[in-house]
């Protein structure tokens, strides 16, 4: 059975809770589907919750950036919940922290 991430709409924001590491095709595909789910419901501010992610590799980064670009093309915003650990370090290494604002709410 394909993996599915939990999505939620709160006001004008869509939320995606990433379950597990972002380092493989099944996980990348789950993110793509969850993103499409929220995007196709008209949300242009989307928040990724990566607090449960321990490892993210370049494949996972690529999938996050794909979400960023699709939103940017429609003047939308991709945000992240406050990051920690290895994921935070990786985002800072690749300067993703400059691209993706943090949703502190």
């Amino acid at each position, binding site marked *: 059975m394909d993996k599915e991430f939990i999505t939620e709409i709160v006001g004008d924001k869509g939320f995606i809770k990433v379950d597990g590491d972002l380092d493989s095709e099944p996980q990348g595909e789950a993110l*793509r589907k969850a*993103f499409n789910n929220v995007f196709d419901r008209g949300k242009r501010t989307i928040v990724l919750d990566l607090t449960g992610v321990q490892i993210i590799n*370049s*494949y996972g980064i*690529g999938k996050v950036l*794909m979400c960023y670009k699709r939103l940017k093309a429609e003047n939308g915003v991709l945000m992240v919940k406050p990051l920690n650990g290895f994921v935070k370090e990786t985002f800072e290494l*690749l*300067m993703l922290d400059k691209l993706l604002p943090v949703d502190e709410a």
Partner: protein
Amino acid sequence: MKTLTKIYELPTVQLASEGIKLDLLSDLVRAGKIDTLTMLRIELAVQEAVTNGVEHGNLGLLSEWKEEVGPDGMDRFSREKYERLKNPKFAQKRVRVSVEVDDTKIEISVHDEGEGFTIDRHKASVALESYGRGIAMIKANVDEVSFDDEGRLIRMVKRF
């Protein structure tokens, strides 16, 4: 401690679906040579190197194809990868991973059978460019990185 050497030689199609698991790393954690976080870092670096060898090396996929996204959100890179993994011309190429461990370090080499590539050493790793991201992540997680055989071979060293 004597030098321990282990060599894995796996076909592209197997690596693309299963990745590679280096049992030696868990042994090093149990022996107290490295901690769990270091093991994860080395695993990540190896995974990036193997992925590069599989995708850019043996399958000949270009990074810029990741930017060509269709209306369904799927990019050309993913589509081409799916097709080439069904083609024996690409799928049966192999990747050789060799691991050497001694008292002071672990050295891992990943060698693919692709066309080779040139690393632009002066190109900054910028988040939006898929080129260089994997290499940046490798360099961030091991102590030394070097390339040989026209880019088909990457050597990584992590010191204890």
